[in-house]
């Protein structure tokens, strides 16, 4: 290309900036050639005209040659430019690298601070991306909606699922939905030759796969016919379960296994990554759905609808509302006008994804905001460092400029350095984010939906890259603000850099950064503080039971053997005997003080809702209140430590069907305000004898979660009273064991052995302590609190570093002034106070702005708070005190240094 010698580059490449230039060069070259030829020919005796004709003829198509040359030269030029640009880049980065290696401490602080800030943001973004932003893993995800029935008349936020009758009615008549599929999360025991294993089962309608847009990997999926009662028993295997349990053997299709004591044929294998929304199914089974069954007001089915193409959710909502209002005329027996009115039975159609993510979306956005604030604070620190650096290099820059350095080139030099540091910080950030995500997956917070889908995807990588590039650009441009402004370089040079007082502009820019930092820290710490207070409040709530020292697990009795097809009390005998035997044998284990069982464990299962009729009140089916209805064994109250006034039913009560029930205090107060509930009579579902009679009243019990009011519950016995067999035998129960052992889980193996000895086909599932269950009910608060506390802590440390840095720097800058002051008689204490006062001024300004910001923004936390107002004065006051102390502390060391200034030495140096 060129001979490479600097200064004598070929002219073609030094100047050509445009196509016109290239064309001009070509023209000149060809012109020279043609002229030379013509002269040659004239010399040999031709006339000029003849010579011109001869040359043109020889040359051929001149325009074509010219175009060809231009094309070649353009390409040459482009390649050359790229080469130059690459060279400059390599030079700048090489210099930057050397600069970094010369100042490793500076580089390390910058990289670490940026890495921490960007890493935290990247991690939370990855979480938000996987949980909230990414569509659900269904091909038709965008068109899937969830359908449910809000019943504000029953309970403020209660929503019921779909009923079987409603399903058939909606599916047939909906204009906005193409189709509706149903599902239920359930569990079943898969029995093989050696052991009974409890598996997570997805019970679905025959069209589920088609509605979500999935095809079976092997075999077939279900059809509507599989849902009919008395259809042959079939099942599909979930992908991972098939791989693990059956080694991915395709021959498993067509074989038979025992599922819930019933032989079923495996007809297919589900595709990879197909699950129910937020539920990893191991086995898929058809729901039993009977289109000819009489309509029953029983809402137990999750419903997914698929919108017709182009139909909006709002249109589907209107359509569903129209159908819902027709329910009373279609099914007069199940949906009476009174019921519709009292329960305020409605319908809600929402995007399926919103439904799956629920409130976590809000929490994650708040957390992203929090880590973004941490990142800004971290960035402010780094910006401050760069400003100090720029100040120190002011002379170097000025000399370079005075010697004629190109401003653009200088800018490239600075940006290369900051870019390199930021990119290294970005790499560190990705590493930190990866670690944070792994840690989170290990913690496995139950409050985060779709957790198995969380990973550090390329989207998070892009976020980290963009943030580092942005940081690099801004940091590189910071020292250039001076260049752009021009400034009088000569005067700086003339000063000889002796009185290196930072320009007023620089110092105020640095103070402004620290004020902003403090303000952001105040907001973040206020948020963290509010969460901590909420958490404390939640933890100090008396749930009405004692969760410590209690082990719980579930047992499921095979329906076919334990719920025989007979009527009357005999139908309950097998279940009754099993549970009584189990309770007695568990109670005999060493260390066990009490054993109880229930169909709906507090804090874990919903209490359900059934109408209750009270003797002496003229409730009708329309006016009777709907209250929590829980079947509980005799030992339940003492095991959970629920205080009961009166007496607790015994096994004899159950056996003799005396109809003794316990009610919760909240229910008693509503039904019989000011009266003693003991001895009152009530019954579910229907008026007139036989009545159950209340023998005991519990204290206030919280069964939904710690931030909900006490529950209204009737605790019914396992066997209904004679003449009113209203519920099926309770084959699925949760057993609770109170033990003196320090770790309740240590009882689990013995409990498993006992259950297996009683019936080897009965699986034990969901073994966990009651404390874990209670913790899960506050999991969202705990999760938000922990992450906000971590963010707040980081903000605190980073701001401390920031304010310390600025005060420390000012003291160093003001050494001459301090020296003069001391020479004029100022006391060390006065000087110290001056420094601390300066720090406090900065801190106070930051705190004031931060408090205003906190007042304006903490409202977004409202839904996460419990028992604390978003502007809780204790929290805000605490944060203020904390940061004032921080301001004073950060000034301590610089103040001490200021008092040690030796006036003589300083004055001599001046």
């Amino acid at each position, binding site marked *: *290309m*060129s*001979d490479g010698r600097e200064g004598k580059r*070929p*002219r*073609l490449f030094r100047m050509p900036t445009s196509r016109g230039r290239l064309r001009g*060069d070509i023209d*000149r*070259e*060809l012109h*020279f*050639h043609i*002229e*030379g*030829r013509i002269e040659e020919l004239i010399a040999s005796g031709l006339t000029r005209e003849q010579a011109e004709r001869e040359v043109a003829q*020889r*040359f*051929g*198509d001149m325009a*074509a*040659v010219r175009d*060809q*040359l231009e094309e*070649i*030269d353009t*390409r*040459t030029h482009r*390649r050359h430019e790229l080469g130059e640009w690459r060279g400059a880049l390599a030079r700048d980065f090489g210099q930057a690298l050397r600069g970094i290696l010369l100042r490793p401490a500076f580089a390390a602080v910058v990289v670490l601070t940026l890495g921490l800030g960007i890493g935290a943001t990247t991690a939370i973004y990855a979480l938000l991306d996987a949980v909230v932003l990414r569509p659900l893993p269904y091909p038709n995800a965008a068109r899937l909606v969830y359908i449910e029935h809000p019943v504000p008349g029953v309970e403020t936020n209660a929503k019921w699922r779909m009923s079987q009758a409603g399903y058939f009615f909606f599916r047939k008549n909906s204009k906005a939905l193409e189709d509706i599929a149903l599902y239920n999360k359930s569990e079943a025991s898969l029995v093989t030759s050696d052991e009974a294993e409890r598996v997570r089962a997805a019970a679905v309608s025959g069209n589920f796969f088609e509605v979500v847009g999935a095809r079976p990997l092997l075999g077939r999926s279900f059809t509507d016919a599989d849902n009919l009662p008395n259809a042959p028993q079939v099942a599909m295997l979930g992908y991972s379960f098939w791989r693990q349990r059956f080694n991915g053997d395709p021959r498993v299709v067509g074989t038979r296994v025992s599922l819930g004591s019933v032989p079923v044929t495996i007809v297919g294998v589900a595709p990879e990554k197909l699950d129910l929304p937020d539920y990893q199914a191991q086995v898929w089974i058809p729901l039993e759905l009977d289109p000819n069954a009489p309509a029953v007001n029983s809402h137990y089915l999750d419903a997914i609808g698929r919108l017709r193409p182009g139909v909006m959710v709002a249109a589907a909502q209107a359509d569903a509302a129209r159908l819902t209002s027709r329910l009373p005329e279609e099914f007069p027996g199940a949906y009476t006008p009174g019921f519709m009115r009292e329960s305020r039975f409605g319908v809600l159609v929402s995007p399926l994804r919103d439904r799956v993510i629920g409130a976590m979306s809000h929490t994650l956005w708040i957390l992203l905001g929090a880590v973004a604030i941490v990142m800004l604070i971290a960035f402010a620190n780094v910006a401050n460092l760069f400003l100090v650096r720029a100040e120190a290099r002011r002379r170097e820059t000025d000399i370079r400029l005075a010697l004629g350095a190109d401003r653009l080139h200088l800018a490239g030099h600075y940006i290369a350095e900051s870019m390199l540091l930021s990119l290294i910080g970005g790499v560190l950030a990705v590493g930190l984010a990866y670690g944070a995500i792994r840690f989170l997956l290990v913690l496995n917070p139950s409050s985060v939906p779709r957790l198995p889908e969380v990973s550090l995807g390329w989207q998070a990588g892009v976020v980290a890259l963009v943030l580092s590039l942005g940081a690099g650009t801004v940091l590189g441009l910071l020292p250039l603000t001076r260049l752009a402004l021009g400034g009088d370089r000569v005067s700086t040079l003339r000063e000889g850099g002796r009185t290196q007082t930072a320009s007023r502009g620089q110092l105020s820019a640095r103070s402004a950064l620290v004020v902003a930092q403090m303000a952001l820290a105040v907001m973040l710490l206020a948020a963290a503080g509010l969460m901590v207070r909420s958490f404390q409040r939640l933890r100090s709530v008396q749930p009405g039971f004692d969760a410590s020292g209690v082990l719980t697990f579930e047992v499921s009795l095979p329906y076919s053997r334990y719920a025989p097809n007979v009527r009357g009390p005999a139908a309950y005998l097998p279940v009754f005997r099993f549970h009584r035997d189990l309770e007695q044998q568990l109670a005999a284990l060493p260390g066990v003080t009490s054993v109880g069982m229930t169909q709906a464990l507090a804090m874990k299962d919903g209490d359900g809702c059934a109408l209750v009729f009270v003797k002496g009140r003229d409730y009708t089916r329309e006016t009777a209140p709907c209250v929590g209805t829980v079947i509980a064994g005799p030992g339940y109250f003492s095991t959970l430590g629920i205080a009961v006034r009166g007496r607790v039913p015994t096994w004899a009560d159950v056996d003799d069907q005396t109809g003794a029930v316990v009610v919760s205090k909240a229910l008693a107060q509503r039904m019989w305000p000011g009266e003693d509930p003991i001895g009152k009579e009530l019954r579910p579902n229907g008026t007139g004898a036989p009545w159950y009679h209340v023998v005991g009243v519990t204290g206030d019990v919280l069964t939904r979660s710690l931030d909900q009011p006490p529950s209204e519950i009737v605790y019914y016995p396992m066997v209904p009273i004679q003449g009113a067999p209203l519920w099926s035998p309770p084959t699925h129960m949760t057993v609770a064991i109170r033990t003196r052992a320090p770790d309740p889980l240590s009882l689990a193996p013995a409990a498993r052995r006992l259950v297996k000895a009683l019936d080897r086909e009965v699986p034990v599932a969901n073994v966990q302590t009651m404390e874990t269950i209670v913790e899960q009910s506050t999991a969202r608060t705990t999760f938000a609190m922990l992450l906000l506390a971590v963010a707040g802590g980081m903000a605190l440390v980073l701001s401390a570093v920031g304010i310390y840095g600025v005060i420390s720097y000012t003291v160093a800058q003001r050494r001459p002034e301090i020296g003069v002051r001391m020479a004029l008689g100022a006391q060390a204490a006065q000087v110290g106070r001056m420094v601390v006062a300066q720090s406090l001024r900065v801190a106070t300004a930051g705190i004031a702005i931060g408090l205003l910001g906190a007042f304006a923004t903490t409202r977004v936390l409202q839904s996460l708070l419990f028992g604390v107002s978003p502007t809780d004065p204790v929290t805000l006051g605490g944060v203020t005190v904390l940061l004032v102390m921080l301001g004073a502390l950060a000034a301590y060391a610089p103040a001490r240094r200021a008092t040690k200034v030796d006036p003589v030495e300083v004055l001599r140096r001046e």
Partner: protein
Amino acid sequence: MAEDLDLLRGTLDLLILKTLSWGPMHGLAVLRWIEQVTEQRLQITEGALYPALHRMEQKGWLGADWGYSNRNREAKFYKLTAAGRRQLTAELSKWSRYTEAVNLLIAAEGAR
């Protein structure tokens, strides 16, 4: 006028490189040199020469510099770069291997 020899494909590069190995020249000089040395037997058109020069410049075999001809006119001078020199060596050896092979074939035909 001597009989024109059709220029063998690919030999133009070799001719230009060899010509420029004597020193920097502008396009017209290259053309004249080839014509003179080959006693007008090889006729190269401008339509072939200039694209070849520019292409070789792009490949980095030739460097180009604006200078003045002995009649004091502005002209673009080409010269060999180090890469061009290497290329010339390679082309020469390729050419001699090629002509050897062709000569062998011709000699063999004569012996029949």
